[in-house]
């Protein structure tokens, strides 16, 4: 009868499964999958961009986390409201999985290459954590970097140099040594990827050792390297590793044009070293609904934040003398359109400074949606043409609204007295499309983020599923960044190789930026090579500010910016103030806002959820928290 008391689960896995070869494989897949919960999540995305020169809060982001992360005085970032917490919550379970795989893998006889994948992910997570929160625990409860299966209700934070020298560097060195050149799976981690992160970690740690603006670290520690090296040594290492990776690219390399790098048809291209993958072919494996995303978990919904509500645009079925208005640009699952959440907005500096060159440099056109085109037939509106600005007719596919590159010589009539755009856009004589000049871009109306836009092949000629989270992979690391890492290290004094000075490296990127294949703005093929013009604009002497500006041109809106500004300690200098118009329809007055960036903001708060679950005194919880975020101070 005692067999009645025996248990045999038949539909779940228990942790013992990790001790099998298939379990190790499953653990590795879990590590790839964890990327989705961080990259593409709009709230984590908010923490990487809002408050930098790339983004401020948008009209629908007022009052909440988006405005708070802007640090423009609306409210304080706290342990309870911090959108950076997402990283904390999703990395530690993954680090433990990696610990388990690394511990169990050799016993079950899997290859060093597989173990190296786990090492890469452990290093990757610790690198993200150490940049975001400062020093973090290496011991999860079972000893340093050991698989924890015990009840640990306390935690002790290691220092920043400990995290780098005991976890990140050793893991990445082994990953470089043992990872294959070509990924085991589509999007699998490779030697080249490990080199990029090793170089970037060296670079970041070198900056930390140098600490030019005297930003405090936590837990408090001296800026000396346990391995006895100085900042310069690490800058050099960063340069050496990055250039080695450039010279040994394996299957990777730069895509011919910037447009081809980001167009949805060309996802998972050879320039992409790491991404959080998604698919429209399986809802289950996509990890997110294919028809309606509620914005959470594994949803890739970051791009909704920088998408303004173009669906409010109106044209008329009849002459504007007696209008019958209709929404002429409907919500569509297309790369330039997608679902509008209007939570974040690009300040004017993005258009005036970062993307000052909109003619030669294809990256402005390859980043933003600047022309919104009529798609009403897909919504069942049968009119073959509609009346738009100046009572001129527009056909499907024609521009309804254009965000102008420059302020035009002729004054724009923004009155909306006759031709009501419904979004406060204006009219220029002779043009059928409504227009808005760059000095009138506001928190409500601004160019959308084309590069991350929705792309699906199952729209069947209709509007598709614009409310689903994006089924494209969310890109995390690109081959191009090796050039930036090497260039930055060179600027910081690393000895350079022939033909690989900072100027040379940056111009590889800029030369590619001059190559056109398509114009999003005109919606036509545009095969032109403006490389020489773009390179001609490169200053002879590259400094950090130029590297940062160039990084923003290359990676605008991809979630790099806060980390770049914090690494180089240039946050306040570059993003201390910004200019933008207001939140209401028709707000066209640029307002300059000064941010209140505190020195303690260079580290994000440890999440309240971590502290709530720790079984220690309130004072100890405060001690665990980063300065500036303590609840009782």
């Amino acid at each position, binding site marked *: 009868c005692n067999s009645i008391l025996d248990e045999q689960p038949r539909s779940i896995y228990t942790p013992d499964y990790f001790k099998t070869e298939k379990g190790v494989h499953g653990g590795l897949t879990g590590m790839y999958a964890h990327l*989705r919960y961080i990259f593409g999540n709009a709230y984590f995305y908010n923490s990487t961009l809002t408050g930098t020169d790339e983004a401020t809060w948008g009209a629908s982001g007022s009052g909440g986390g988006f405005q708070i992360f802007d640090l423009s005085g609306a409210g*304080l970032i706290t342990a309870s409201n911090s959108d950076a917490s997402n990283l904390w919550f999703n990395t530690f379970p993954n680090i433990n999985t990696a610990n388990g795989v690394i511990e169990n893998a050799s016993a079950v006889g899997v290859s060093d290459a597989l173990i190296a994948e786990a090492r890469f992910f452990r290093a990757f997570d610790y690198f993200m954590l150490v940049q975001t929160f400062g020093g973090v625990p290496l011991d999860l409860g079972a000893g340093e970097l050991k698989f924890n299966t015990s009840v640990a209700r306390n935690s002790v934070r290691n220092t920043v140099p400990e995290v780098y020298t005991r976890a990140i560097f050793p893991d990445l060195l082994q990953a470089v040594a043992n990872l294959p050149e070509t990924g085991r799976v589509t999007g699998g981690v490779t030697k080249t990827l490990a080199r990029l992160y090793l170089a970037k970690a060296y670079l970041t740690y070198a900056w930390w050792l140098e600490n030019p603006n005297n930003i405090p670290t936590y837990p408090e520690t001296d800026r000396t390297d346990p391995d006895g090296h100085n900042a310069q040594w690490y800058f050099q290492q960063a340069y050496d590793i990055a250039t080695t990776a450039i010279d040994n690219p394996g299957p990777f390399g730069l895509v011919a044009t910037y447009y081809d790098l980001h167009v949805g048809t060309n996802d998972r291209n050879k320039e992409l070293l790491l991404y959080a993958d998604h*698919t429209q072919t399986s809802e*289950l494996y996509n990890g997110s609904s294919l028809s309606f995303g509620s914005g959470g978990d*594994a949803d890739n919904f970051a791009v909704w934040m920088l998408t303004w509500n173009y669906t409010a645009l109106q044209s008329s079925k009849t002459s504007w003398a007696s209008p019958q208005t209709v929404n002429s640009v409907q919500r569509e699952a297309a790369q330039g359109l997608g679902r509008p959440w209007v939570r974040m907005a690009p300040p004017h500096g993005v258009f005036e400074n970062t993307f000052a060159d909109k003619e030669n440099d294809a990256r402005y056109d390859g980043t933003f949606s600047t022309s919104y085109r009529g798609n009403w037939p897909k919504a069942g509106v049968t009119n073959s043409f509609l009346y738009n600005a100046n009572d001129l007719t527009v056909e499907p596919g024609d521009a309804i609204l254009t965000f102008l590159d420059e302020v035009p010589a002729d004054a724009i009539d923004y009155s909306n007295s006759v031709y009501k755009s419904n979004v406060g856009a204006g009219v220029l004589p002779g043009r059928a499309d409504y227009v808005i000049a760059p000095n009138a871009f506001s928190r409500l109306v601004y160019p959308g983020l084309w590069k991350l836009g929705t792309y699906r092949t199952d729209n069947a000629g209709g509007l598709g599923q*614009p409310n689903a989270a994006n089924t494209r992979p969310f890109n995390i690391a690109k081959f191009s960044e090796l050039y930036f890492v090497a260039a930055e290290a060179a600027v910081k004094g690393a000895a350079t190789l022939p033909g690989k000075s900072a100027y040379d490296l940056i111009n590889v990127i800029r030369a590619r930026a001059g190559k056109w294949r398509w114009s999003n703005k005109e919606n036509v093929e545009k095969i032109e090579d403006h490389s020489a013009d773009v390179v001609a604009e490169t200053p002879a002497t590259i400094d950090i500010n130029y590297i940062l500006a160039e990084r923003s041109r290359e990676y605008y809106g991809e979630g790099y910016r806060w980390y770049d500004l914090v690494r180089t300690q240039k946050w306040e200098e570059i993003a201390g103030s910004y200019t933008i118009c207001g939140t209401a329809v028709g707000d066209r007055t640029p307002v300059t806002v000064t941010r209140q960036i505190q020195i303690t903001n260079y580290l994000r708060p440890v999440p309240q959820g971590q*502290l*709530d679950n720790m079984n220690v005194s309130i004072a100890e919880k405060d001690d665990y928290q980063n300065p500036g975020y303590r609840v009782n101070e």
Partner: protein
Amino acid sequence: IVLTFATITAAFAQLVVTGKVVDETGAGLPGASVLIKGTLTGTTTDADGRYSLEVSNSSSVLVYSFIGYSVVEITVGDRTVIDVDLVPNIQSLNEVIVVGYGTQRQEAVTGAVASVKGDVIREIPASNISQALQGRVAGVEMGQTSTKPGAPMQIRVRGSRSLLASNDPLIVLDGIPFAGSMNDIDPNSIKSVDILKDASATAIYGSRGANGVLLITTHQGQKGQKAQITYNGYYGVETIFAKYPMMNGQEFSALRAASAQKFTNTIDEADGTDTDWQDLIFEKGMITSHDLGVAGGTEKGRYYFGAGYFREEAVVPLQNFSRYSIRASIDQEINNYIKIGFNSTSNFSITNGNNSPAVGMALSRTPITNPYNPDGSMKEIVQEATSGAQWVPTNKRFRDLNDKYIDQTRAYGSYNTIFSEVKIPRVDGLKYRMNLGLNFRQSNSGSYTGQGVFSGVPTTVSTAATGNSLTTNWAVENLIMYDRTFADKHEVSAVLLYSAQQEKFNSSRVTARDIPSDAFQFYNLGRADGVITVNPSEQGYNQWGLVSYMGRVMYAYDERYMISATFRTDGSSRLAPGHKWHSYPAISVGWNIAKEQFMSTVGQINQLKLRVGYGETSNQSVNPYQTLGLLSTRPYNFGDATYSTGFYVSQLPNPSLGWEYSKTFNYGLDFRVFNNRLSGTIEYYVQNTKNVLLPVGLPTTSGVSSIIANMGETQNKGIELSLNGLILDDQDGWTWDIGFNLYANRNELVSLASGQTRDEGNWWFVGHPIDVIFDYENIGLWQQDDPHLSILEPGTASKPGMIKVKYTGTYNADGTPTRAITAADRQIMSMQSNFQGGFNTRVAYKGIDLSIVGIFKSGGLLNSTLYGSSGYLNNLNSRAGNNVRVDYWTPENTDARYPAPGGVGGDNPKYGSTLGYFDASYLKIRTITLGYNFKRSLLDKMGITNMRVYTTVQNPFVMFSPYHKESGMDPETNSYGNENAAVPLSQNLRRILTIGTNTPSTRNYLIGLNLTF
């Protein structure tokens, strides 16, 4: 005096009176006593209930009595034939109570046991008995988990004790632990429900009885009874109790104008439009029930067959529940020693539309949206600000979906008990019994949503799903029972038990996309043109077993002193090896004070009994496999063609997971006074639960989210009072009785793991109840001249009109706060009520009776996701859908409860969750019933023995409810955990019942008929 009287009457001439004494069903009552009042002369009725008695004169008064029935007195007058109806007396002294593995006279019961008769249950027509029992028994709380048709309630006997393990009581149907749900038992088939509340009473059921036991006894035939047919039926109309309090067009336009974000009207919205979407969607519902039963008996056997039909149609289109049930019960004596029998209940139920999106649509469409085209036709799609295109929901459109939509669950359950009983020859009172329970439950669910249905995008691909689950359960009980009375004064009853049971469950679910034809619905997912998915997290399997040994001895001396002692040992598969077994004792004593000699001089006291019990019980109700830890899965794609499933450790194994156990002291006093006219029970109990099974949330840095462990200690103590009074006892034809119960339970977490006193992550705090809300405390709104706004709520976004929460920090010398509001200011707010209870009253005059049943609750917290932030219906910024009608702050309206529109906060106002917390108090009339029993003289000619018609109104009104006052709604909860909210609640809130956007609560009007012939 008696002697003198008798002598006098003897002087008069003798008369012979004959007649028949019948029970409430019209059947003859054998063995009833007929006595001439004031004398010792009398007789008893024969097998048919007939009697014959000589009386001295026409002024003699005959007293008719029978155990369990009210006494009737009739003056003889000039009649020689007197037929008498006896009606059951619920306060009868000698009522028999089912105590598990036997019955006991109520007088002899020593544990805390409450008994409810089937008639009382049927006073509230409902699909299941949990609704009918609400407010009827002190210490038994029924919490509504859903307003959908056929939804059962959450039952808590004397509060919650476990943090993770189940707090649901054990249901025992006709002696065998029941494997189905409350919904599988037709209330019409129930003869009585006995509820074991304290550990000394539940100990016989061991671990399964830790949360109380509901012993349900169904109708049986009687030996020697001729076949009797009963019919019970009712039909009713359901109307919405109260619409959800949403804004009308004018109010919404005003909110949009006041909102700082200035969302503009879409092309389908216009100020001045006023569309009531609830009117467009909701309809009248219907409830009906019909039951037919045949009961009878032979000299050596008895039988019962019954069939029932129940159907409820909700006010939400396409949402309904139907149940067909049959029941059979037979037992037969083979010879003088052997008896066998079986009992079988089967039912088939169909649930439709449980996942219908209609309610959400009714509440979220804006009232300024015009659903009509200029030509008067209905739009299919309307545009909403920020949320884009939306499907236009109307009642007709739902009804016209036909094949395009189905959401159905069909379930079949069969619960069977077979027993045999052998009297051991030559040992008087000793018998052996074996019970064999065989249970089977299968459920098949299927859903299909056609292309574009419910979606603002007409091309949205169709989806379908089908799922199956099968539960099989067996139980064997071997019992040796010994019942004997020695020397008239020593009653002994002993039971020895060995039992084993096992349950196996498995379920599967498959989903598919893009079904080529609506006709296929979910019936052939293989035809799908799109992806067919078998999600591993939707396939289930578990099996558990329990092995037990139990012994119980009950002894009573002279009906004055009673003792009951139980010892039980349980072994559970769910716990870790080495920790699977646990043993525990229980003992209780009773003293019938009223039977003592010294009480015989005290008049007016018919019963006075003191009971004291101590018992231990344990709880193993963690899900199977919790000791082994868990890997959670994460499906992932490598490119568009390669799929793989990833894992991570989400729960640690616990090789020492053992029993949670409770120690309970119970003190009870039962009394009956004033010639049994007033009776009642007072109970006090203290229950300490140790080694509480706990999912311990770990800090993220441990790499694992939780572990199930035995940690901590909880306590429940409480007081219960039940009173029943017979105010008028057939006085001039009037009868009036009143029942009342009141109880208060105090739940407290006594300790947590390793000396911890606050577990903020799990919302567990030593010294507080298990169910608390840990959140900021709303103390009003910030006003223009309030000091310290800029310190407590730093930032330019903070302004007057935002929610003000309690600050708990220190102050500087100048009186200014030293810091801003932080997480340290969160408060612990108890959900626990001060007291609750119910009342009922019945007034009868001749054949007419009127009864009222009510319930009440005082204090505690109610969480409404409608008003709180998780519902997204009270974000006060008009960004997309409609808003709950609330009085919000404006510079001109500063004494509002709700914050200024479009103020600080993201999608919801800052601290918006606090807007959902209300005082949970209410008093509510559940039913009012007016009935008429036809005169038997009239019925006899038609061959009918009993006929009753009645009309009932359910849920007529609510009083004293702050939530009702605010919303007009029913203050009872209608959702469990994170159901029916726009965004999932925090994990900690999921164990708490809430009011969400479920099917609206209804007010029902019924007419019914009961027939016996």
